């Protein structure tokens, strides 16, 4: 199958406007006849549901949390990028586009990324109008900072809680539509299946997490805004409930899964303390603006950090990447941390940690300034570690954080199943093989506020509303399948808990499909994962029944999907015989240990098609053309 990204032709800067002009519209009187299901209420989902409701569509929004405001976008700390160029430091739409393409290691579509950069400014305007209290200077103007490897200051922020404030803005807009009657909320409801009728997405099957009942919901289009799959690693910075289920079940119903091996390991997280660990906490990478990363020069040096004199410290990021220093992009900083720890130079009891040192910045700017900038982060660090980072360096280590891969979508955000749209982190589209800091919030809101309202109309305009009801046999069959699967899980009555399986899967993924991947390791993972999956279906123990609230059953369904999805991720990583961005293959590196891309053979999007439970998925390729940026080595020296 030839994958057509449907990118408009002509100059990049006019493409989106031209495309919008050519798309179909739905007349105001007809909009309410169309029902749209939005699954997930993070930045992408809440902004999409709010904007579509405002336009007059009949929207139903689903989330597994008790309130839409709790989606994990809320935890984003650092900020949101936009090409406003308020600081007059040379930023532009083209530069934001170029940085994002390069940051993604030339594995994203030019047209999508350019559009993202274009709408970035409108997002900031929209958020301010909603009452998002971004940081301001004494004259009342918006403040910007440099963030995550950018050489211009284009990041807008609200203390260390930018994601929270942006999500509360979108949640407010959503709440307004709930009041207006255009959006119906379904909290504590989890999507279990996509329903496809005559090749088109016509609804979902969802479980009410309180009563345990399974319901069919029919619609004219479905938007998945269900976030990323970093929890396939068990320990990640994602929320405990973040999962791949909605996306994976859509994949099983015909939506292609693109680039699952592009996962981001974030360099600045609090290290693991023991087996009890349930999640990892991110320390915003804005800390790298003032913190210096180092490890002792000699291995096994277990003196306290302040006892190690300056000349015996290795500021390895500054040494290896003098141009960017401590602000080197995430994939590069993470790999460098792993390298020094592998050499035995890591700090802390586990040896898996590096110092993030603020003593220089405190000496130069004073403790008060540092407190003003990062106070809440230092407090959070102290709560978790019982260490005061004003007095001693923080210890940090990389952790799985974000999924660049996701369901394949075309320029209209439509998947390979017509009528199924995928937004935000759940799609694959804009970040290539690595996402730059402060770009996730930008993409989620771009998709929800500004892209989907236009592109969904083009699909709906060609579709007769209300054509399928829940009485259709596809809905009935889907409910039966979900019920059968749940009963099968409950009937196993084995010995191991769901968490034990998830933890084992996580350790396979982290060990063999993590930061440094090899042919041998990936091959091993591809034999370990199916074996673990078989054991899961024979030996998992889930207490309680299908009726009523059953958190272990919820987890079991998600882990069952991770146990299949992990294999797809490893398979994609094995097939991609190159290193790029977050996908680093030790067998493909330069003599200096940098990622070695292979543009001649791998400059494409790998989109996987589900072929059946016991069959291998089929690979489809979407070639990537670069007409406006030159493919070059991604050098940060």
């Amino acid at each position, binding site marked *: 199958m030839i994958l057509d990204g449907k990118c408009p032709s002509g100059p990049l800067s006019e493409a989106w406007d031209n495309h919008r002009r050519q798309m179909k519209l739905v007349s105001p009187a007809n909009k309410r006849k169309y029902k749209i299901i939005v699954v997930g209420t993070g930045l992408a989902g809440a902004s999409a549901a709010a904007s579509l409701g405002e336009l007059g569509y009949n929207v139903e929004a689903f989330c597994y949390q008790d309130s839409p405001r709790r989606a994990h976008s809320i935890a984003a700390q650092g900020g949101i990028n936009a090409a406003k160029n308020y600081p007059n430091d040379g930023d532009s739409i083209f530069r934001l586009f170029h940085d994002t393409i390069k940051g993604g290691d030339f594995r994203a579509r030019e047209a999508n990324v350019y559009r993202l950069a274009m709408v970035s400014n409108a997002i900031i305007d929209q958020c301010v109008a*909603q009452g998002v*209290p971004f940081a301001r200077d004494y004259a009342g103007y918006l403040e910007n900072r440099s963030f995550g490897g950018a050489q211009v200051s284009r990041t807008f922020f609200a203390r260390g809680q930018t994601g929270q404030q942006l999500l509360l803005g979108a949640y407010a807009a959503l709440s307004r539509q709930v009041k207006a009657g255009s959006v119906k909320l379904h909290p504590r409801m989890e999507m279990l299946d996509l329903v496809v009728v005559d090749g088109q997405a016509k609804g979902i099957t969802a479980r009410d997490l*309180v009563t345990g009942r399974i319901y069919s919901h029919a619609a004219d289009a479905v938007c998945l805004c269900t976030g990323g799959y970093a929890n396939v690693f068990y320990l990640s910075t994602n929320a405990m409930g973040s999962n791949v289920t909605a996306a994976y079940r859509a994949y099983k119903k015909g939506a292609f899964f693109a680039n699952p091996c592009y996962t981001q390991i974030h360099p600045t997280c609090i290290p693991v303390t023991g087996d009890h660990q349930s999640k990892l906490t991110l320390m915003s990478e804005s800390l790298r603006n003032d913190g210096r990363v180092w490890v002792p020069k000699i291995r096994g040096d277990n003196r306290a950090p302040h006892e190690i004199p300056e000349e015996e410290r290795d500021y390895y990021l500054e040494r290896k990447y003098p141009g960017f220093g401590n602000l080197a992009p995430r994939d590069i900083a993470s790999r460098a941390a792993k390298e020094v720890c592998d050499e035995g130079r890591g700090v802390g009891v586990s040896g898996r940690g590096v110092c993030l040192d603020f003593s220089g910045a405190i000496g130069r700017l004073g403790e008060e300034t540092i407190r003003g900038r990062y106070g809440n982060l230092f407090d959070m660090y102290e709560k978790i570690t019982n260490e005061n980072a004003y007095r001693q360096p923080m210890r940090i280590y990389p952790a799985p954080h974000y999924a660049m891969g996701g369901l394949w979508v075309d320029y209209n955000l439509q998947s390979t199943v017509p009528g199924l749209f995928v937004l935000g982190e759940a799609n694959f589209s804009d970040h290539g093989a690595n996402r730059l800091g402060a770009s996730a919030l930008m993409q989620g809101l771009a998709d929800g506020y500004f892209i989907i309202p236009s592109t969904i109309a083009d699909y709906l305009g060609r579709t007769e509303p209300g054509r399928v009801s829940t009485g259709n046999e596809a809905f009935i069959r889907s409910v039966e399948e979900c019920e059968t699967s749940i009963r099968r899980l409950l009937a196993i009555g084995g010995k191991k808990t769901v968490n034990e399986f998830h933890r084992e899967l996580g350790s396979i993924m982290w060990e063999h499909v993590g930061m440094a991947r090899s042919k041998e390791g990936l091959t091993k993972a591809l034999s370990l994962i199916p074996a673990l999956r078989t054991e899961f279906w024979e030996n998992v123990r889930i207490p309680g029944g299908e009726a009523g609230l059953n958190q272990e059953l919820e987890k079991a369904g998600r882990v069952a999907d991770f146990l299949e999805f992990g294999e797809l991720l490893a398979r994609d990583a094995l097939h991609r015989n190159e290193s790029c961005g977050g996908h680093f293959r030790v067998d493909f590196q330069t003599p200096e240990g940098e990622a070695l891309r292979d543009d001649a053979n791998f400059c494409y999007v790998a989109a996987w098609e589900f072929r059946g439970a016991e069959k291998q998925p089929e690979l489809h390729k979407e070639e990537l053309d670069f007409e406006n940026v030159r493919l070059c080595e991604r050098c940060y020296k």
Partner: protein
Amino acid sequence: MNLTLYVWRQSGPDEPGRLEQYEAWEITPDMSFLEMLDVVNEGLIKSGKEPIAFDHDCREGICGMCSQVINGVPHGPQKKTTVCQLHMRHFKDGDTLYIEPWRSRAFPVIKDLIVDRSALDRIIQAGGYISVHTGGVPDADAVLIPKADADTAMDAAECIGCGACVAACPNGSAMLFTAAKVAHLATLPQGRVEAARRVCVMTEAMLKEGFGSCSNHYECQAVCPKGISVQFIAKLNREFIKASFKKAGSY
């Protein structure tokens, strides 16, 4: 360390609940409170019992999902800390802990430690927003906002909507929650236009949901994991009185 827990177990909204005793063994100081409960739950599952149901998600103190009363205090003994960020180093070997759900008429128990907080969503739905459409708004710097105002708005906007304020209040009042949103928006020029209407409809929704009124106990501020100040309740009252001087029906 080893602890004794008394945990509220309730199988459904209409079922009677009771405190049940559990032992938490081999707990380490680096565990978070919820990780301690994970350990207890793993033990319960292995011994064929139903694990304790509790709400949680981000486990980094920002989503507002976790909600437990520990020894009578919502979110437990550490100031400005959600349950998920509370670590076991703040407890001693041999401690006895009582763990209960949020207690308030407006928050019916769903199961064990899980309550229904959708009443808070309905207060926001009543008017906790600026009525702006997507698109067609002015440049973000077209309206300047004094830094002090932006900072005050942010102080209020930090509310995570967990509902601890309600659980701590002897009146079961949601005034701090409502005030935080009213103050956040009323402090910004973009939110002033609807301020009078907003404070009236939100207050009305709050009372309709069965929350009580504030009688200045300040328990809410004491347990708020984000340290939202009761001064915002004063701001809510001021906004409400100002609005009541407007002609009826003009908002």
